[in-house]
């Protein structure tokens, strides 16, 4: 009797554990584990927590896979402050980056006034063990955006025009903007703007769009490729003093993983990307609700990169 009950119990427990690992011969953790143990043949592609960056990561991953490189995806990793940590500790090997912001992350004083200057600065400050490849013509800049109504009310065309109104306005942006060199402190330093308050939202995504559209914030940080800007008729304020600098898309990669094949493949992808193309691709993900991986695959095929 006792042994039988024990046997039944054990069977039930095994079932329960089996349920935990159901339906797969593969290790369920494999696709999400960072693994410093990863062999040099496998590249873990990361991305930041906003759709455009995920799309770029999918483009890189898809192109590499097409060239027979083994790829693992680890997307949607918080902000730069976090994913650079993941790059450093080997959790990821490759991530799409932006020349100016990345350069200024490592050196707040870096000259990022033009594409060439930003790239030169970046190459100077990239830490040991990491390297950047060729930048794409496509740029995605931070920008200060207001609604059409606000722009008309205060006749705003450039960020500087906010000077006499900022003290009555609420600025919205990603939480990290509160401290970033080109965020709230940058607006104050370069344009002398002091907003009534800063409202931490999301990474210039849906929440920010909603908050600006709805009037919870009066001005907001959105990325210049955000298709919602056109969709909602928002006005992007000019940045004549170049606070946001040049922000070309560029792959940041672990040096050991940047083999000739990898370098060529990623540079080939970047070469095809201009700002308009990128914006259209992002719109497919954000406005048409297509999957980033599907949009990426379709694009790569159309450019014979896959």
């Amino acid at each position, binding site marked *: 009797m006792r042994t039988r009950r024990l046997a039944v119990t054990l069977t039930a427990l095994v079932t329960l554990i089996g349920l935990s690992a159901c339906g797969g011969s593969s290790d369920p953790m494999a696709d999400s584990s960072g693994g410093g143990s990863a062999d040099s043949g496998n590249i873990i592609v990361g991305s930041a927590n906003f759709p455009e960056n995920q799309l770029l990561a999918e483009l890189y991953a898809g192109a590499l896979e097409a060239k027979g490189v083994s790829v693992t995806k680890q997307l949607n990793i918080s902000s730069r402050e976090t994913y650079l940590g993941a790059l450093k500790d080997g959790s990821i090997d490759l991530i799409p980056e932006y020349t100016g912001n990345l350069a200024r992350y490592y050196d707040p004083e870096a000259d990022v006034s033009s594409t060439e200057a930003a790239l030169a600065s970046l190459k100077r400050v990239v830490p040991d063990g990491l390297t950047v490849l060729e930048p794409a013509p496509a740029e995605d800049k931070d920008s200060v955006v207001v609604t059409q109504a606000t722009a008309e009310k205060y006749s705003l065309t450039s960020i500087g025009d906010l000077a006499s109104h900022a003290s009555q306005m609420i600025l919205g942006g990603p939480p990290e903007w*509160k401290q970033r060199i080109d965020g709230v402190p940058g607006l104050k330093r370069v344009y002398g703007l002091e907003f009534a308050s800063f409202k*931490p939202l999301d990474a210039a995504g849906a929440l920010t769009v909603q908050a600006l559209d709805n009037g919870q914030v009066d001005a907001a940080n959105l990325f210049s490729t955000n298709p919602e800007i056109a969709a909602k008729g928002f006005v992007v304020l000019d940045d004549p003093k170049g606070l946001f600098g040049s922000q070309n898309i560029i792959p940041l990669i672990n040096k050991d993983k940047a083999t000739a094949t990898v370098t060529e493949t990623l540079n080939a992808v970047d070469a095809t990307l201009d700002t308009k193309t990128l914006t259209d691709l992002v719109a497919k993900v954000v406005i048409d609700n297509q999957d980033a991986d599907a949009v990426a695959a379709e694009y790569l095929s159309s450019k014979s990169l896959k």
Partner: protein
Amino acid sequence: MNLVWTWLSEPSHYLGSDGILARSWQHLGYMVLTLLIAATVAIPLGLWIGHTGRGRIVVVNAVNGMRSLPTLGLLFIAVLLMGPRIPGDLAFLAPSIFVLVVLAVPPILAGTYSGVDEVDPAARDAARGMGMTSWQVLFGVELPGALPLIFSGLRSAALQVVATATIAATVSIGGLGRFLIDGLAVRDYGQMAGGALLVGVLALLLDGAFSLVQRLSVSPGLSAPEASSRNNQDSTATITT
């Protein structure tokens, strides 16, 4: 540990509209608002179920279902659907409070109806025998008898809300969660751990306040049970019935 200490010992971190004091106060405000709404829904419903015995199976199952709702997903849905229809800062506050209420209702409801259930049937019969009406039995016998468990329910709801309200910072809400989300965004471990510590301290204080109120407010005739049975009561309020 040093990072936390450095962050906590910086006086400027305490003051201002985004300081520790203001954030703690906001956090407490969200909790109180949530509990008020949740209690207004859950206590009458729980009393009704306990008193009449009706709808019990439906409610018990619904409560269990609510417990397994992932707060983060619910929050995002609420913000996307409710946000555009609400003006001003309420656009983020209302969905957040709604989600926290969903979290707080199950323990209060479960506490209330199990509290009524546990009223000695003899006491109920005696009250009826004395000619008390159904309402008089409810408010004179069942409600006072259920109070200890209602309080346990409120207490566990309050603690859950205090810990979970932090997540609402992802949708621009204030409170102590800001230190976690803002700290994460700039990888400031001191701020994150400090924020977590503050949430823990707030929960501790709250737990203490609840046990004090519980001791003072419950009818002396009912507060007699020894420690072990009280512990059982607490756990009945939190376990799935």
